[in-house]
């Protein structure tokens, strides 16, 4: 049997940006998959612990009998197993390196700085967290200008690896804007990225897996209450 004909499943949650990366990549390749939803706020299932014993996290891509973990590694795997167009990674090694560099930056620095805004206690801490986060956005706006070469996406005419790596965070970015009361992506500071964000979210491979901002905000409230030890709201 062809590798690419084996059954495909994604273990994840609708709210996780990392899980979204895997689903967007599969959608781009028109690969049918079963979405196995975890209810992480209720604890980690046996299935998850078995599938990702090292990190115990989502997403996990289940391809036949193979288990692949770590969202960006999954995206590269998908691109390699289903090499037909559209390509997710650029064919040029230098372009790939630039995309991987920025994806690492997003995961190691930028997304944690966004989370810091939500966890900040008091106005001063919040202001400092937002300032740090906005510095990162300025870098990303500039990187977008360099990467896109006049095209609509980081990946060129179509979404690519870096669009996926970055765009998956847009839902949570919007929730952060709502809860902090501050426009993080703005016409003034990030004019190119604001338009990119609209285009990304409208993309056929993205729109059905990008969570609705209101639903995500409600979910965030529920998680925050749980974390504080409050009783869950009646749903």
């Amino acid at each position, binding site marked *: 049997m062809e*590798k690419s004909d084996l059954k495909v499943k994604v273990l994840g949650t609708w709210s996780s940006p990392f899980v979204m990366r895997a689903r967007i990549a599969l959608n781009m390749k028109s690969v049918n998959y079963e979405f196995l939803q975890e209810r992480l706020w209720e604890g980690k299932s046996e299935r998850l612990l078995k599938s990702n014993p*090292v990190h115990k996290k989502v997403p996990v891509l289940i*391809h036949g009998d*193979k288990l*692949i*973990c*770590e969202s960006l*590694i*999954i995206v*590269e*795997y998908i691109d*390699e*197993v289903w090499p037909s167009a559209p390509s997710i990674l650029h064919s040029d*090694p*230098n372009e*790939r*390196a*630039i995309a*991987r*560099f920025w994806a*690492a*930056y997003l995961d190691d620095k930028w997304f944690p700085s966004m989370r810091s805004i939500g966890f900040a206690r008091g106005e001063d801490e919040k202001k400092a967290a937002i300032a740090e986060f906005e510095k990162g956005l300025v*870098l990303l706006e500039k990187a977008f200008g360099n990467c896109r070469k006049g095209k609509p996406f980081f990946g060129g005419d179509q979404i690519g690896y870096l669009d996926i790596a970055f765009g998956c965070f847009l839902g949570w970015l919007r929730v952060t804007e709502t809860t902090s009361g501050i426009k993080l992506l703005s016409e003034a500071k990030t004019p190119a990225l604001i338009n990119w964000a609209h285009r990304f979210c409208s993309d056929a491979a993205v729109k059905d897996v990008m969570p609705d901002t209101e639903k995500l905000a409600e979910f965030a409230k529920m998680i925050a209450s749980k974390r504080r030890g409050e009783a869950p709201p009646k749903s």
Partner: protein
Amino acid sequence: MAEEVKVFGTWGSPFSRRVELALKIKGVKYEYIEEDVYGNKSPLLLKYNPVHKKVPVFLHNGKPIAESLVIVEYIEETWKGNPILPEDPYEKAMARFWAKFVDEKCLPALWKAGSSPENERAKAVEEACECLKTLESALNGKRFFGGDTVGLVDIAANFIGYWLRLFQEAAGHDLLSAEKFPALFKWSDEFSSCSVVKDSLPPKDKLLAYFKAHIAGTKAAETNASN
């Protein structure tokens, strides 16, 4: 065509040595520029890596790349001989998974175990041992993580293959020992003595002295903080 291949690094950094090791495996000639990362980062380094301002930076025909594992993958894709990654997509994904595990979990845990204050030491050591145990399982009876030859995971784990034994000597503990992790210990011997690796390792005495000074510095800061 004269190719420009440059590595901006620092002698003791496992991260810049990863890049040099990948180039040596591929037989690629390069110019090495030593950076004074503690004293005085060069204008070129700051120009080529404005985001992180760190070594290593790799320059290929005028185009800079930063982040050691990103650079190593670039080297793999640019020079095709002596592959560092397997061809099979699943095996490749597994190699990337373990390389990431080394960087994100093992190295921070090992560093913490060696430089934690006394009261946090035991917990830090336990976490570091968990990481080493997990990493050891990835060896699975092979000579190298890459199989018969040094591959991406071996390169990523270079700190564990060579630096760690000197670090633990300076810190006065014994995280990686033949008793506790026989397969990983054996691998570290194989790694640091294999011909393509041993010529690109920092000198033992200099590295040990560096670690001793660093740990003494950390201890002094601890003492001062508690006085």
